[in-house]
């Protein structure tokens, strides 16, 4: 029997080695290890053996079964692996073909600029306030120290709707409204972004509608040097730490003293180039200390309170920053224009 068992083992291992698919392996398993398999039938004949021989042959038979089983399993795994590899090879795709597009929109460039400025001033403790686009003559002009017939009204040609109502020419009326709302005894720290309108013919540098951001800071003991400090902080955050600011005296009816702010040109750093028209400086905003008439008309005592105000144009900021040469682009909304600033 010993010889029989060894022959079975040899025979089985040979067949396993030659098997190429799982079906053959299954057949081998049945042939040798199944209920009617050769190993089983050999074991059935064990009864004829002597008491002494039985355990020895029994152990040998177990070893043979073990050996065949393990070899079968190993071979099985190997064949599966090969089959899987074949399958995966079949599943290969062209990874260079384009992916399924995902539709993504984006904010308008002006919104980006406005939100960037809003966030900067929010960070400095300012609130963001809105107001009506159809304004009264009082809020748009008179409360800002521009009485009727004031020569400076020529500076801003206005779309009137009636004698007293107009499309606001600036977002400063929001400042006057906020001050009145605050009742003359609370500090005001706000910016007001929004749409404004002027009677202009649209061309590359003029638009009858554009945006403005104005800011106001009113409190006891506000100094002109504070205005300078806040504007410098703003300019460095907005345009880069290496930019310098320059304040020049100017004139606005609602501020006194009044200021025009330039920043050093990013292209030439002050040496003069075509971007800054040779001056080394780029005009960026107007500002000043709030005129005492504006304070008192809004209920703040100019003997006690002082403040500063500033105003800038997001279109101009965007045009300078991105080299845009036609203001109408902002309102045409050509998709090829808007998409350019996805990652701006």
């Amino acid at each position, binding site marked *: 029997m010993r010889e029989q068992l060894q022959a079975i083992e040899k025979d089985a291992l040979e067949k396993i080695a030659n098997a190429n698919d799982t079906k053959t392996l299954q057949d081998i398993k049945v042939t040798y290890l199944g209920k009617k398999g050769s190993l089983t039938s050999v074991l059935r004949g064990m009864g004829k053996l002597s008491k002494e021989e039985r355990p020895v042959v029994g152990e040998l038979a177990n070893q043979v079964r073990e050996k065949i089983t393990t070899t079968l399993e190993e071979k099985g795994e190997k064949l599966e692996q090969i089959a899987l590899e074949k399958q995966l090879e079949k599943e290969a795709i062209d990874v260079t073909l384009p992916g*399924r*597009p995902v*539709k*993504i*929109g*984006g*904010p*308008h460039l002006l*919104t980006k600029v406005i*939100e960037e400025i*809003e966030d900067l001033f*929010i960070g400095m*403790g*300012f*609130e*963001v306030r809105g107001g*009506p*686009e*159809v*304004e009264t003559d009082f809020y748009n002009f008179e409360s800002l120290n521009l009485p009727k*017939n004031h*020569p400076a009204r020529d*500076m801003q040609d206005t*779309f*009137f*709707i*009636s004698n007293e109502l107009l499309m606001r020419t600036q977002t400063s009326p929001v400042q006057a409204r906020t001050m009145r709302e605050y009742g003359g005894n609370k*500090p005001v*720290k706000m910016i007001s972004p929004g*749409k404004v*309108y002027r*009677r202009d*013919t649209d061309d590359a540098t003029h638009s009858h*509608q554009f945006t403005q951001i104005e800011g106001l*800071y009113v*409190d*006891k*003991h506000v*100094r*002109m*040097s*504070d205005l*300078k*400090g*806040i504007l*410098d902080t703003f300019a460095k955050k907005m345009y880069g730490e290496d930019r310098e600011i320059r*304040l*020049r*005296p100017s*004139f606005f009816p609602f501020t*006194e*003293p*009044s200021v025009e702010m330039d920043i050093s040109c990013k292209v030439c750093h002050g040496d003069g180039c075509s971007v800054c028209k040779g001056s080394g400086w780029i005009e960026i905003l107007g500002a000043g*200390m709030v005129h*005492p008439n504006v304070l008192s008309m809004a209920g703040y005592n100019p003997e006690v309170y002082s403040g500063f105000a500033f105003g800038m144009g997001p279109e101009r900021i965007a045009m300078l920053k991105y080299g845009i040469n036609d203001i109408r682009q902002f309102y045409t*909304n*050509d*998709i*090829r224009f*808007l998409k350019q600033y996805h990652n701006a």
Partner: protein
Amino acid sequence: MLVSLNWLKNYVNIGSISPEELAEKITKSGIEVDGIEYVAEKSENVVVGYIRSCEKHPNADKLNLCQVDVGEETLQIICGAPNVAQGQKVAVAKPGAVLPGDFKIKKVKLRGVESNGMICSLQELGIEEKYVPKDVAEGIFVFPEAVTVGEPVEPILNLNDAILEFDLTPNRADCLSMLGVAYEVAAILDQPVKLPNPKPAMVEEDAHQFISVEVEAPEWNPYYGAFIIRNVTINPSPLWMRNYLIAAGIRPINNVVDITNYVLLEYGQPLHAFDYDKLDSDKIVVRRAKEEEAIVTLDEQERTLSNEHLVITNGKEPIALAGVMGGLNTEVTEGTTNVLLEAAFFAGNAVRNAVKSTGLRSESSTRFEKGIDPNRVKLAGLRACELLEQYADATILKHVVEFDELDQTEKQVEMDTTEINKRLGTELETKQIVDILHRLQFAFEQHDDQITVSVPTRRGDITIFEDMLEEVARIYGYDQLPYTLPVGASQAGALTNKQAMIRKVKSLLEGAGLMESRTYTLISDNAVSKLISPEIKEGQFVPIELKLPMSEDHKYLRQSLLPELLRVISHNQARNQIDLAYYELGSVFLTKERELTKQPDERLRLAGAISGKWMDHPWQQDNKTVDFYVLKGIVEKLFDYLDVSVSFNQAKIADMHPGRTAELKLGDKRIGFIGQVHPSLQKQWDLKETYVFDINMDEVFYAYTPSLTYKTIPKYPSIVRDIAFVLDKDVLAGEVKKTIAEAGAPLVKQVDVFDVYQGEHMEAGKKSVAYSLVYQDPEKTLTDEEIQASFEKIIEDVTQKYQAYIRS
């Protein structure tokens, strides 16, 4: 204002500072210098020549052969100018000279005869054609007065002058005069000012014998001075004056006109000369014009006046529109010998009224409008008289005939050092402030730190402490001010809930594929009534119209964002950008008033438009054209995200596809609509199939509550059951869904349509709609019995309500 530096040097020593440096200093002190121009480009080797002889060129009729003495030598020059003649002193470009435009002068032969240079016209020397006096416009320039042969012409003709172009803010009318500029530059450079001191030698005869002055409107004309000037000889004005006028951008005419212009620029005081002999009376009466009164002005236009205008009359009829333009009836001409010179103070608003109604804006009217110096009115008249004596051989009669109620007092402004430092954030000492006042040449009285400034009348812009604060700060230098941060209590800045919600809405829509647009508020007549949301349409609101629009395209205030948004779609599609998705947030303007007496309601709306392909994945044949459900999906997601529930109800809305439009409701409130633009409007506006939505965001905001509390995530499993009903084709899937949800409450948490079928396996007029139901009980695992009971109730309700049956 164009400021000639050579002219300026007569009043203030500017030393050796370059025009560029001076411009920079002026700009930093408050007057923006927009540019620096030179009268002419540099020309070398151009000198004064004397024409010794002038003969016809032997071989050419139109050319002359001249022998020209240029000092060290005599040059033979051929000249083609019609006005060349022997005995003239002219500008000669010698061989080697380079004229403006890089024009090099060489020795040449013309028709066989040598020519060693060129006799120049002013244009050839670089003076702009429009400033060249008419008497020398054709041909060469001839020096009208004594000049030295051989001298370079550049300084004589002021060709080397640098002109600073001042961009004046409205408050700095003082710098509309050379004297005002001199004070400004003197303060900047810390130099004294040298003023002219006009002293005409008047004759004994009294002007009062020839004229009287009455003013009936002193509020508009507090001062009127009339000078009588006899025996004027009209001639070209002296070269220096012509040079300065050219530099200031004014073409010289003749001595009388040039002198009034010169004094206008020097003193900032407009003057007007009448031909005394044409006055037809011996009195001047200044009054408001009568209604419908007419005057023919110097430009030969008849102007109809009203009592908003101020006129100068001869007691009978107007002879000038005050401060704006003289009348043709009293014009000074070549034949004029006796002149009445007017030096007056006209109020800004009187002149502004006339400018507005006539459109005549001039150097004179601008100055009156912005305000002139009351202390220079008479002085300027005297200055003109002095110049007329000198350069027009005129005789000035004694006395100015005046009406005078003019306030010439100086305003007093109090300041003190502490307050100045407190406002500026500086640590100035009183003596620094005093020094600044000296530089500005402002008189003042000082007691310790208290200073009382007497503001000169030339600076009408300074009336209060803050104005003086600016003067101190700007002369001290804005760049010298320290940088500080406010010391007041700090507060946290933050967006309001609404602002934060709007930012969320924007980022959601952008993530969902929509691009933000920004369009115009002002729209056309044709667009204003289109695509208006039904709740607005039924509100009977009236479009708001501008009084004076700039164009027909921008005439009305919008009531809907959609017309402009569709303009964006059509603009892009016309440029072959077909696949588009946009949204916009903005105000619409609503009123019921035909004549607006109060501000309209401004309501915040959100609109969107999509057109073309939504998805484009061609190699996978996976392309999706936009349709109603693409846009609805975005809108649903938006409300889902805000946790605001809205319903969509089939609706017919003007300008929209009648079968593909829904109205949106928030509770019972109608808040907007969604659907396809009506195909005829699509055609009219050149649009491909386009879907739009329009939502009242104010209402959405009222319904929006940001989530603040934690909701437990259910521990027990949910169970999904599907069911399909066969329904009549017209039954709305959304209605059935509502019934299922109601019947299944509270165990059914969610109902979704997952299949709709209509076709060959379905009987005519029917459709099958399959729903997927999610059951859940937060407290326990549901049993089959519980679910079955609910399921049966749902089937019963739906089958009964819609005559439906279950699809097997």
